[in-house]
């Protein structure tokens, strides 16, 4: 039973290492056989060479299989099969080593201790359980070999030069040597796999730490990019504000220069100064709107919001607006649904939303037109809309409508004075309360601005953000 290694990828790489190692083992064994043969003429060279050749042969097979796995990398097959593959190699190696031992003196061969290497390799490549299993298998093979040779089931090769052959016929000696070897194998499995597991754990921790660092780095990069964009937008905004402030100021200075420098004939002076005065008021409007905009920008909507009765706020606004509409010869109609639930907002802000939308409708609707104000509930929202029969908005201007300082050409032609900030303020305010704003319009036909604010439920007074 092969456990899956936590660092499977590493195992996949180690397979090649195992196959390379085996080539060195084959070469080492061949040299060893020749040297041993010189020292110990009793050694049967042919079977040993055959076994070594067999090792070389199966290593070729393993190498081919490893290459095939490599070609299927990325499919997961390589990763899934690698542990079994490594285990198979180790088992085959154990059998081959046992065969080599058999033909080179069995219990008399001091190289039996090489069995330990297989156990250690299993501990490095596989799990603790696998390495103990390998140690057990090695013990069984070794003990079985000694037993079979001792009982004469298998022929035993004596190495008279290395040791006293008689010693190995003593069962107690053979048993103690086998016992010591098997114990060594098992202890090696336990120790090596313990070290190996700890290393694997450390590596795993490091990989995890690296991953966390990588995630943090990505998040920080994203935050950084967002901040950079905010900063760029702010700079752009300041440049725009400066430009917008400069235009009326430039006009005022030109007017004053004209009069003070004596370039305006007396009958024109009043007209020039009046125009300058209008521009000065425009400047004042702009500054007021900018402050309003800044307030809307940093408005902590839900935190300051309380349940507000939409119809009451609207009543207050309509009083003023009716006068304006009448002065301009417009009909102002209202459809306010009864039993409206309160919405979450601040009364002042809600008032400013209505004032902005209604006064826009009045401003951009020619005399004789209609302005209709509607408030109704729709599910969890209260929807307010202001519809007019005014100049409307062309399709191209729609996307920029809520941009700061944007005014359509038609709007400029109809009402010269205007900052282009009102709708931007309304949008920011509505959105800060978790609401939405949208517009339906056709150029020349009129516009309908609508906004939806969430209904205040009973718990909303506790200032919790529940939406």
């Amino acid at each position, binding site marked *: 039973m092969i456990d899956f290694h936590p660092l499977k990828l590493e195992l996949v790489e180690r397979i090649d290492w195992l196959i390379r190692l085996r080539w060195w083992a084959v070469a080492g064994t061949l040299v060893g056989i020749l040297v041993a043969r010189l020292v110990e003429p009793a050694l049967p060279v042919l079977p040993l060479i055959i076994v070594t050749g067999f090792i070389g042969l199966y290593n070729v097979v393993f190498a081919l299989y490893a290459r095939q796995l490599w070609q299927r990398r990325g499919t997961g097959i390589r990763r899934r099969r690698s542990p079994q593959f490594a285990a198979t190699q180790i088992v085959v190696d154990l059998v081959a080593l046992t065969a080599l031992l058999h033909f080179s003196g069995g219990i008399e061969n001091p190289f039996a201790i090489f069995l330990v290497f297989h156990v250690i390799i299993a501990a490095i490549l596989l799990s603790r359980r696998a390495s103990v299993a390998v140690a057990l298998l090695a013990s069984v093979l070794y003990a079985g070999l000694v037993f079979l040779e001792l009982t004469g089931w298998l022929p035993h090769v004596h190495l008279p030069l290395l040791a006293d052959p008689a010693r190995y016929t003593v069962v107690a000696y053979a048993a103690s040597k086998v016992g010591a070897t098997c114990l060594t194998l098992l202890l090696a499995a336990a120790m090596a796999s313990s070290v190996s597991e700890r290393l694997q754990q450390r590596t795993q921790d490091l990989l995890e730490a690296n991953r966390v660092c990588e995630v943090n780095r990505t998040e920080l990069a994203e935050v950084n990019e967002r901040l950079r964009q905010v900063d760029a937008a702010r700079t752009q905004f300041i440049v725009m504000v400066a*430009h917008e402030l400069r235009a009326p100021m430039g006009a005022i200075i030109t*007017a004053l220069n004209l009069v003070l420098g004596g*370039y305006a004939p007396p009958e024109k002076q009043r*007209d020039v100064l009046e*125009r300058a005065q209008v521009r000065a008021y425009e400047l004042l409007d702009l500054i007021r709107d900018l402050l309003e905009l800044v307030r809307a920008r940093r408005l902590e909507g839900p935190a300051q919001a309380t349940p507000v009765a939409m119809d009451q706020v609207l009543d207050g606004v309509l009083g003023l607006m009716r006068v304006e509409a009448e002065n301009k010869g417009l009909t102002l109609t209202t459809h306010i649904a009864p039993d409206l639930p309160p919405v979450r907002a601040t009364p002042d802000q809600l008032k400013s939303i209505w004032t902005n939308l209604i006064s826009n409708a009045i401003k951009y609707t020619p005399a004789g037109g209609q302005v209709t104000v509607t408030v109704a509930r729709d599910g969890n929202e209260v929807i307010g809309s202001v519809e007019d029969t005014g100049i409307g908005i062309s399709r191209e201007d729609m996307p920029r409508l809520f941009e700061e300082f944007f005014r359509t*050409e038609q709007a400029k032609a109809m009402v010269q004075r205007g900052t282009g900030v009102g709708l931007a303020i309304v949008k920011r305010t509505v959105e800060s309360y978790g609401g939405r704003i949208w517009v339906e319009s056709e150029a020349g036909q009129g516009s309908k601005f609508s906004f939806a604010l969430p209904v205040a439920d009973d718990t909303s007074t506790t200032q919790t953000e529940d939406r």
Partner: protein
Amino acid sequence: MATKGKVLIIDDDPDFCEFMRTGLESGGFEVLTAASGKQGLSLMRSAKPDLVFLDVVMAHPTEGVDVTATIKEDPELWDIPVVMLTSIMDTEYIGHFPTDRPLAVDQFLTKPVPMAEVLRIANETVGAKS
């Protein structure tokens, strides 16, 4: 009364057009005004002004620049002197805003331009022509 020459103001700010008209008329010039680049170009073709004051940023940020490009292409117009006006803070901005295209203009002034300066330019330019 015979005028010193025809001056065209192309600017989408009606107050500015009016102020320039007042100042230049008091200086003895005939003044035409146009509120857009398109209108300005057609006036240039029909009225053949002796001098044009052209605003950079109108409905489009580069409208004035586009006008100069058209002037440069049109043999009928390219002899008419053009003075470009802008309310952009300083000419350093011109590198990237509203354009870094080469401008086919004779002078570049930042608003507000003192009327004395406007009249000096008008007198020099129109005087040199006639």
